[in-house]
């Protein structure tokens, strides 16, 4: 198997704050990998390290066959970065932005112009090509940003939270564009805090929480790691809900809706046993439903405890 990104043991601290703690990350050539995690998990730092913008304190990485430390110029030639904030000159027109990026990729002037035209058409920006980027909507800005990233036909594209701040329609449109790029053979490393985005786009998901990879695999693998079916129990009143919750202990609970979710193997016998146990405890549920765990469930089960601790600390302040 070939890997476009192969990073091992990446560590980075800012002052006394450890942001990345021994992170290994491999992205298979031609695939999309999503680095999924909450705000402050270290996603952007990881991308900035791999894109040569900051140096890691420790660890090694090979990007498209070039060593990050010894050949950063080789890395720069092979990659393109679309950061969290649109890397576009707002006083230049869409076309001027792309032609400028083309020239900075050292395409001859004519070739830069032709490539800009091609990309404007491909990204649906031909009508707005002569307008200054400042007049673009959020979605158009992101598309122009992506087009600018594609000027030099990179082998590896970094997308750092590409849809943050976009409305639903623009987000879906951008997902389509990203899939199209992957079909052309571009390897993509995407960071996101949206589980749905990782689920929709990525073949492989790596979950990052407080500087550590806490899980990795395909969306299906991660979902089945929680058990194949989640049984959701709805209780008639807060009192029986509370008593059931205290007997079940580790399950996910929702105080407001009076629901409890329990991971099971999905067999009738397991459900039967669960119900019998609740019956015996005198707290039968009102309703029951089963569903496959979502990435949300995986994410919360892996990071929920940590997030809850952080949340309560913030509340206390």
């Amino acid at each position, binding site marked *: 198997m070939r890997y476009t990104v192969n990073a091992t043991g990446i560590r980075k601290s800012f002052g006394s704050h450890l942001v990345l703690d021994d992170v290994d990350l491999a992205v298979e050539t031609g695939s999309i990998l999503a680095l999924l995690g909450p705000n402050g998990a270290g996603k952007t730092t990881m991308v*900035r390290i791999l894109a040569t*913008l900051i140096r890691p304190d420790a660890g090694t990485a090979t990007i498209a066959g070039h060593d990050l430390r010894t050949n950063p110029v080789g890395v720069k030639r092979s990659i393109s970065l679309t950061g*969290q904030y649109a890397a576009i000159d707002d*006083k230049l027109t869409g076309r001027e932005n792309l032609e400028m990026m083309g020239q*900075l990729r050292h395409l001859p002037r004519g070739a830069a112009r032709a490539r800009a035209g091609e990309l404007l058409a491909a990204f649906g920006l031909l009508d707005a090509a002569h307008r200054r980027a400042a007049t673009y909507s959020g979605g158009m800005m992101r598309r122009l940003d992506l087009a600018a990233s594609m000027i030099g036909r990179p082998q590896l594209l970094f997308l750092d939270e590409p849809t943050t701040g976009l409305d639903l329609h623009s987000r879906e449109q951008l997902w389509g564009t990203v899939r199209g790029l992957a079909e052309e053979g571009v390897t993509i490393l995407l960071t996101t805090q949206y589980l749905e985005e990782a689920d929709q786009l990525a073949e492989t998901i790596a979950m990052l929480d407080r500087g550590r990879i806490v899980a990795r695999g395909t969306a299906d693998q991660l979902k089945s790691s929680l058990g194949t079916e989640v049984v959701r129990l709805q209780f008639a009143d807060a009192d029986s809900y509370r008593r059931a919750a205290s007997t079940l202990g580790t399950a996910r609970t929702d105080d407001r809706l009076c629901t409890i979710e329990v991971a099971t193997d999905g067999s009738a016998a397991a459900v039967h046993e669960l119900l019998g146990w609740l019956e015996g405890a005198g707290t039968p549920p009102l309703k029951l439903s089963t569903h496959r765990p979502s990435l949300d469930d995986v994410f919360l089960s892996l990071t929920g405890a940590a997030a809850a601790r952080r949340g309560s600390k913030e509340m206390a302040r």
Partner: protein
Amino acid sequence: MSAAYAFSDARVMVTRCVKRSLRDPEAFFTALLLPIMLMLMFVYVFGGAMNTGGKYVNYVVPGLIVLCAGFGASATAVAVATDMANGIVDRFRSMPIHGTSIFIGHITASLARNMVATALVIGTGLGIGWRPTASPAEWAAAAAMIVVFVLALSSLAAGVGLVARTAEAASFFAAALMFIPYVSTAFVPARTMPGALHAFADNQPFTPIVETMRGLWMGHTATGAAASHEAVIALAWCAGILAVSIAAASWLFRHRTAA
């Protein structure tokens, strides 16, 4: 990364910064109106009360050139800080291009803006009775002094823009640069100032820079020294400022990027 690439990167960046300057109508018109307004105000409002031996317009032109350059420099600091706060610098840095080309772009655009402002000061001055006695060679030397001075000030401003990180902080820099020329021989001779200010005026860079121009254009300086003597001090200041700011800017650019 060959020299040809370095040159082409710099050319692209210069084009970008010049376009940005032209497309910021407020800043552009401020930059055009300011030299004219300042010239008229200094000569017609303050000029009558000034005693500099002769017509005030014959004294004040070099002072207004450095004052306008101060305004120009603050625009440069803001432009660099704005770039650094935007994702675009991250994109440039993740590309195989020369980091210095970004500064060459900003500094060249700054030089171009300042040359327009200088031409307006000179044109307005000549229009309202400024009568320099300089030969063509002295004019050329005065122009060279302005170019060197503006380059030094622009690279200092670029360095400040890098440190400042936000446009607001960078524009604060303007306040300092607006005041320093007043405590020099730019608008009045230093002899009328109290002791401490007099000493500061005698030993700060704006004085020799202004006096070099004044000596070249008018044949005599306000300090009494020869223009050539002032020029040596002025060039030493400019060379020092250039060296320190370029070294600081390239270090800062490598080590301190948009968070």
